[in-house]
């Protein structure tokens, strides 16, 4: 045949397919908070596990075969490789299906995606992590990254508020940080119905009274529901934070994770490629961002 068309190129969908989920086994399911379980996953193929290197703040696409796919932040730190931890809130089809699964079941995973926190930029500076409610999930990776590389960061402060102690993600783990002297771990709950809580009680912004923060040498990473942004951002600006040193993790609908499907587009940025970590300056420039 007089043709210049080359041999089949469909091999590409086999070898370099960015949409290809890889089998991962659920090695542990930990019921942290009602409908907020921590799933520990390990890739079945060790090579894939080794080549999967994420930055704090990045996310993965989690597949439940036959049900669908959803973006989930990676809650574990790259400084603790081998397994990935996903803190998943039961919210819809995919997450419901995940909650039906048991230890040893297989799911699909691909990634890591997104920009993640600019850790190399943050290194050498103080770090303030401020989270409300479920916002702790994406920040936890950064927290452990900083603690595991303690010498590369200045002062590390965590402020985390939940409604009640029972709603606090990673509670035991975080409570155990309160006594650490190389960081300031401030935990608060809005109310303490069982009167068991030994830490702060009160709204999240109140924690600023217990923290020593020098805005000129600090990066702030903020994540939480809209009210958290509202109050924390105001506080940070009052303290004199530079707008491009306030980092936020955003949620959008996502179908591909790699800048094709269009769903996570915010004006002229893709949450999956240019985000999910955006600075406050981005937020001012991007309409409909928060």
């Amino acid at each position, binding site marked *: 045949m007089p*043709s210049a068309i080359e041999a089949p190129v469909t091999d590409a*969908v086999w070898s*370099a397919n960015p949409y*290809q989920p890889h089998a991962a086994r659920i090695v542990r399911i930990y019921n942290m908070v009602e409908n907020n379980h921590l799933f520990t996953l390990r890739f079945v193929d060790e090579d894939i596990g080794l080549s999967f290197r994420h930055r704090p703040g990045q996310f993965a696409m989690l*597949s439940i075969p036959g049900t669908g796919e959803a973006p989930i932040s990676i809650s574990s730190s790259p400084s603790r490789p081998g397994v990935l931890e996903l803190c998943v809130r039961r919210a819809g089809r995919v997450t419901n299906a995940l909650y039906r699964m048991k230890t040893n079941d297989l799911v699909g995973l691909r990634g890591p995606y997104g920009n993640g926190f600019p850790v190399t930029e943050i290194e050498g500076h103080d770090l303030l992590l401020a989270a409300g409610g479920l916002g702790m999930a994406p920040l936890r990776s950064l927290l452990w990254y900083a603690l595991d590389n303690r010498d590369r960061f200045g002062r590390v402060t965590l402020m985390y508020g939940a409604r009640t102690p029972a709603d606090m993600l990673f509670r035991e783990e975080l409570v155990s940080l309160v006594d650490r002297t190389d960081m300031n771990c401030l935990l608060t709950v809005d109310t303490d119905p069982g009167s068991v809580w030994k830490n702060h009680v009160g709204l999240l912004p109140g924690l600023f009274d217990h923290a020593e923060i020098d805005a000129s040498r600090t990066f702030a990473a903020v994540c939480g529901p809209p009210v958290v942004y509202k109050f924390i951002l105001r506080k940070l600006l009052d303290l004199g934070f530079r707008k491009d040193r306030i980092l936020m993790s955003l949620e959008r609908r996502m179908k591909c994770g790699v800048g094709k499907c269009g769903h996570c587009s915010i004006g*002229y940025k893709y949450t999956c490629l240019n985000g999910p970590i955006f600075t406050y300056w981005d937020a001012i420039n991007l309409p*409909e961002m928060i």
Partner: protein
Amino acid sequence: MKILKLRKDRLDFFASVVQQFGEVHAPVEVDGGYAFRRLSRWSEARLNYPRTILPPKKYFLPQRETLFRFVPEKGYVPSAEGLDTRIILFGMHACDIYSLNILDMVFGGAYPDPYYQARRKHIVIIGIDCIPDKHCFCRSMRADFVDHGFDLFFYDIGDYYLTMVGTALGDDMVLATGPLFEQPAEADVDEYKRRSSNKRAAFQLEVEIRDLPEIFEMEYQSGIWDELGEKCLSCGSCSMVCPTCYCYDVADSADLGTRDGARMRIWDSCLFSTHALVAGGENFRHSRASRIKFRFYHKQRGFVAEYGRPSCVGCGRCVAACPVKIDIVEVLERLRGVQHAVSH
């Protein structure tokens, strides 16, 4: 670029030779409109069509496409269904070719889409000259002319087509016809130039796109959006017919009685309220006004920032397809504050 010419009355013969390179698809008439379809006879082809209902993007990013088959023991197995089919798109207009060049940027990049790429490699593009009608404004969008993205391109110069040979494959097709193609004479080039400038004058619509991104920023709160939001039916027609709208949804379908299934992607539209809806019910573009604004904003402003040019090629399809006559040219001109103008 290699430039040849072909006698118009030999086009049929050329088409018959070209068949050996793949399935020939060309515009045919369907219920008063036109659509690219596989030809059963060359005589079905309508090369002097205004525009097809769907753009040729359907060949590269099909309306519904299986990305993976899922089998419990094997996991997600990529589907290569139809990716190797050699198709010849005969008679694409410049704006449509341009739109593929735009999609190339989206489906390339750091994460090339292997499905799109495979099809792009396998589908042959033969372009053809066209005459603008009342909805065309490709010239304003700088998409009335393409310098790459085709294998062959035919310009009408009277008794002949002046033929641009864009690729080695295009050249093979030319060679396969034996001595059918001829060397153009100087007069042919003159005729091309004459017709080219006539075509320029034939455009009935003109939009100024310089500083449009800035104007979008300035008019972000404009009342126009509410007005359009009230009118828009959210039918999605404009997105479906747009050669550069690429939003898609992904869903797993399950086979009856097993956990087998398929992961499908299906065209989607930012005009639908589900587009920016996230779990838990939060919707970043809840109002119809915010959605229609987003469509225009993304094309004329967002895409410029991402890829350096608007993602509109001025094909006029969305204008022709909108049941409530929402007209992008009119919107752009109203944003600029000038009346709908018809040049010359």
